[in-house]
């Protein structure tokens, strides 16, 4: 290797760095460091003229090491690596010195900031002397895409990828795609019928030549790396051969056994052999083994007897299927907050206290009441209270805003007003109507005569409890002991605008419960090696600049698995995730990081310590050689193995011991 000729380029980043750090002083200092043959500064080094400046200096001064002192490598390392490559320098001979995030932004005293910037640059220069050129590695990419989850996010992402010509494997846990959106009645603020806009998309998924739909299936194992994932999928036994089944439905008619209907939120029942709802895709049934009496007693088989095409197969078994894909889109959706944990609200204790999703079904023409808004005893309610922020915006449960409740609460209020004469009260903290057409919808609802009470509702009592605890209140509100009044519910809140505590005697209460992360989000995160944020949802790579990417290359996020979202946002994000996946898999080849670990076979003792400690499962054991082997494509170059190896057999390229010690010495060399 030639004698190092180091160039140092100091960025002002406007006033971000220059406002705190004395650039002139730092530049002078840099030029005194050993092997530094050129040092300069510029207002914005990442700008086109800034990049040209670096490229020109490399050529003119025959630089063979480049240090840019600017922001974090996450922001602009790739920018300057490209500049080096274009100027004919191996990109691994570039070193970033972070004097913004780690210096000017976090140091109050300008003098100390200047001292610190010098130290950081000194460290980077010292390290750069020992940088080695590394080969650029490329891997081929499998053009197929796996989509996990068949709600509206998964459906949208799958269709986008399939339309672009990529093969898609769509895995859905339940017997049908459709997700939560299939359960909704209308969608806000346009009041489109949810099923009417969703089912054409569902059908397209079912019929698309590029989409392999795997319902009643779960992803069990993912190995491999960007462009080359190996995925094991568990296809649960359906006990119905869908290639023979015509979907005639006679089996469901004849089945004598029932279970709570999940699609109807338990408000109705379904058979043991069932499709979740009439527009299901695929519209062919499965047998729920837990409910089916044949699996318990060995008797019945009524469905089999009546099935003309002989599609029922009680000998069906779970199967494991392995597929290879280049990219994965996670669209696993959300769960709803269990309102039983706020016991004061009387959910599952009193009749006529419903969750939002239960009300969706009550209001749905295809639902258990055929769309008639009614109480448990069949009466039409005369007053309904809709309680916002149940489990959302609440440190005791979920601190975040669920983003959809204000709007669906308005939607319910509208539908109630449309179908009944009922009074509607909305108990809210803040109305958050931020989307397109949302504020206008809020305005429309105020004109429809909905009463808005600015205060969080804290408790719901039934007639008996109210009568015992607050007899005066019950009397003062004119509640009699008539049969109808004895079924009243009493909602407690403060109207904070009036400074008056209130009791609302109503017939029905709707709880706008929070959206929360899936109960199995942790399992999925482990499967795919993606992170979970403080709120329990999957963490995107960057909240603004990489909102659909994850920390694992080739794995993307779509929809509410990343955070609470309404349908427009979900669809937009699903398309974005699909675009990101398509742009990856259609590249045919992808460059992977060369700053990875390498096992020196001569030194490796085969102790396997590194095998278990690698957080990316990138190290395997070659039994024939009795040596550990690093898979370059999986390795993230974190260095854990290198520092663990008792024989010093592992070298972390670009972060070798020599480079790190030089950097430390440089940092301290003031």
């Amino acid at each position, binding site marked *: 290797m030639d004698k190092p000729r180091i160039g140092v380029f100091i960025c002002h980043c406007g006033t971000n760095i220059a406002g705190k750090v004395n650039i002139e002083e730092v530049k002078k200092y840099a030029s005194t460091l050993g092997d530094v043959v050129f040092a300069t500064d510029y207002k914005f080094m990442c700008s086109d003229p800034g990049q040209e400046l670096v490229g020109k200096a490399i050529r003119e001064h025959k630089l063979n090491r480049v240090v840019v002192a600017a922001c974090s490598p996450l922001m602009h390392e790739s920018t300057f690596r490209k500049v080096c490559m274009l100027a004919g320098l191996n990109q691994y001979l570039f070193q970033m010195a972070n004097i913004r995030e780690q210096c000017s932004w976090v140091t109050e005293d300008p003098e100390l900031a200047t001292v610190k910037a010098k130290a950081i640059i000194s460290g980077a220069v010292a390290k750069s002397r020992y940088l080695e050129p590394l080969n650029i590695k490329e891997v081929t990419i499998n053009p197929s895409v796996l989509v996990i989850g068949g709600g509206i996010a998964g459906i949208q992402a799958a269709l986008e990828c399939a339309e672009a010509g990529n093969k898609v494997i769509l895995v859905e846990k339940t017997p049908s795609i459709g997700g939560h959106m299939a359960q909704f009645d209308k969608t806000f603020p346009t009041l489109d019928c949810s099923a009417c806009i969703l089912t054409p998309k569902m059908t397209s998924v079912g019929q698309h030549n590029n989409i392999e739909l795997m319902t009643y299936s779960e992803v069990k194992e993912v190995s491999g790396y960007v462009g080359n994932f190996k995925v094991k999928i568990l296809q649960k036994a359906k006990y119905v051969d869908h290639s023979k089944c015509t979907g005639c439905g006679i089996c469901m008619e004849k089945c004598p056994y029932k279970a709570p209907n999940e699609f109807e939120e338990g408000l109705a029942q379904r058979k043991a052999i069932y499709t979740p709802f009439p527009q299901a895709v695929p519209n062919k049934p499965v047998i729920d083994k837990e409910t089916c009496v044949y699996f318990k007693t060995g008797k019945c088989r009524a469905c089999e007897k009546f099935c003309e095409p002989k599609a029922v197969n009680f000998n069906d078994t779970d199967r494991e299927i392995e597929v290879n894909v280049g990219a994965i889109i996670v669209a696993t959706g959300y769960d709803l907050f269990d309102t039983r944990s706020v*016991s*004061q609200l009387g959910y599952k204790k009193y009749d006529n206290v419903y969750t939002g999703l239960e009300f969706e079904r009550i209001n749905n023409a295809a639902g258990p009441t055929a769309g008639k808004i009614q109480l448990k005893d069949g009466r039409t309610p005369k007053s309904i209270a809709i309680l916002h*922020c149940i489990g959302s*915006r*609440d*440190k*005791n449960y979920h601190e975040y805003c669920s983003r959809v409740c204000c709007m669906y609460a308005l939607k319910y209020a509208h539908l109630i007003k449309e179908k009944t004469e009922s009074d509607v009260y909305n108990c809210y*903290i803040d109305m958050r109507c931020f989307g397109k057409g949302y504020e206008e919808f809020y305005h429309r609802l105020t004109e429809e005569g909905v009463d808005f009470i*600015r*205060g*969080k*509702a*804290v*408790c719901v009592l039934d007639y008996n*409890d109210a009568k*015992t*605890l*607050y007899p005066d209140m019950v009397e003062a509100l004119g509640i009699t002991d008539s049969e109808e009044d004895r079924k009243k519910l009493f909602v*407690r*809140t*403060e*109207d*904070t605008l009036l*400074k*008056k*505590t209130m009791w609302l005697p109503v017939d029905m209460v709707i709880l706008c419960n929070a959206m929360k992360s899936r109960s199995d989000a942790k399992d999925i995160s482990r499967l795919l090696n993606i992170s979970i944020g403080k709120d329990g949802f999957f963490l995107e790579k960057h909240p603004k600049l990489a909102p659909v990417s994850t920390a694992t290359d080739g794995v993307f996020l779509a929809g509410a698995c990343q955070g609470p979202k309404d349908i427009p946002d979900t669809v937009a994000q699903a398309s974005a995730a699909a675009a990101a996946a398509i742009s990856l898999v259609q590249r045919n080849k992808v460059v992977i990081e060369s700053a990875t670990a390498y096992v020196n076979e001569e030194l490796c003792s085969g102790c396997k310590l590194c095998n278990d400690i690698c957080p990316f499962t990138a190290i395997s054991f070659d039994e024939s050689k009795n040596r550990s082997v690093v898979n370059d494509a999986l390795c993230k170059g974190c260095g854990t193995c290198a520092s663990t190896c008792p024989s010093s057999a592992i070298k972390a390229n670009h972060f070798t011991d020599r480079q790190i010690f030089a950097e430390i010495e440089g940092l301290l060399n003031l």
Partner: protein
Amino acid sequence: MNYYTPFLEVTKTILDAGGEDLKKCYQCGTCTAVCPWGSVREFSPRYIFKLAQHGLEGYEGDELWLCSTCKTCVDRCPRGVGIIDVFTSMRSIIAQTGLIPPTLRSVLGSINSNGNPWAGKREERNIWAKELGLKNFSGETTEYLYFSCCAPSYDPRTKKIAVATARVLKEAGVDFGIFGKEESCCGESIKKTGDNTTYEKLLNSNISLFNSKGVKKIIAQSPHCLYTFRNEYPAHSGNYEQVHYTQVLAELIKGGKLKPKKEFRKKVTYHDPCYLGRHSGIYEEPRDILKSVPGLEFAEMIRIKEQSFCCGGGGARMWMETPKEERFGVMRIKEALSVGANVIATACPYCIQMLEDGRTALGVEDRIEVMDISEILSATMF
């Protein structure tokens, strides 16, 4: 015409006095809607907080002394605001100007001269224990300090609960002693008056007494003392193992070392004291004790455990006048009657006093009795 504008200097004074959490409030009204005062009158902690957030006049009014520190609002607050701390800090600012309610002034005077809030003489503190033959506490020879609380020392009704507890503990062979005349108020309610000077004096003299006597473990009669030993003393080098007497007794019963003998043929309900329940998380032990009593029929009220309804005696309300129709104790007795109980049991001297008052105010002395858990246990033992 008044013109209003925020006066943030005042806000800052409250924040600096320990009311930091004031900043977190987002005005949802949960505190107001769950506050027990809301059952009897208009009272909006949220409104007081908004005034204080702006530093506007009005936060310092008489309503500031309504809060009984029952903690219902703190547990439900979606922003995790330490509402009691904010109230206490606002009270302390007013206390500095000398504008605290007159009845509290005499309480503080009694603390300063007698070491108790009941205007009782220091040398009479021990009278309750005179005939019980209890030993004086010494760290070398005694395991537990039994801390009776000021109320049972001077108030004739609650005196009985200290007697009952001491007798049962003795019967069960628990090794404990008392301080007698040297004992002073734990300071819990004094802190809530806002008079920090008196409170801190009390705290420091108690801790030096405890430390000089070699106290390691304390059995507290009152949940208020328990709370203070647990949450306030450690920061001032007062580190002791503290238990409530119901915890000790429940453990003894569970281990078979204490056995309620005689039948207690009554329908009993249990009122969770705020400082035992919400403040200290002790819900099951008192119930376990009651359920171990032969012949006792146990019935729960509607508002229990985390949702228990305050007796109205906390937060120094004990020494402030409340109109009869606004007394929480009255409502609690009504609730107990509604489940058909002829005994309402509890485990706090303040609750005993407030519930007894409610029973008298309602004129239902013939229908329901107020008893401490220790009294019920004692009745089945002796």
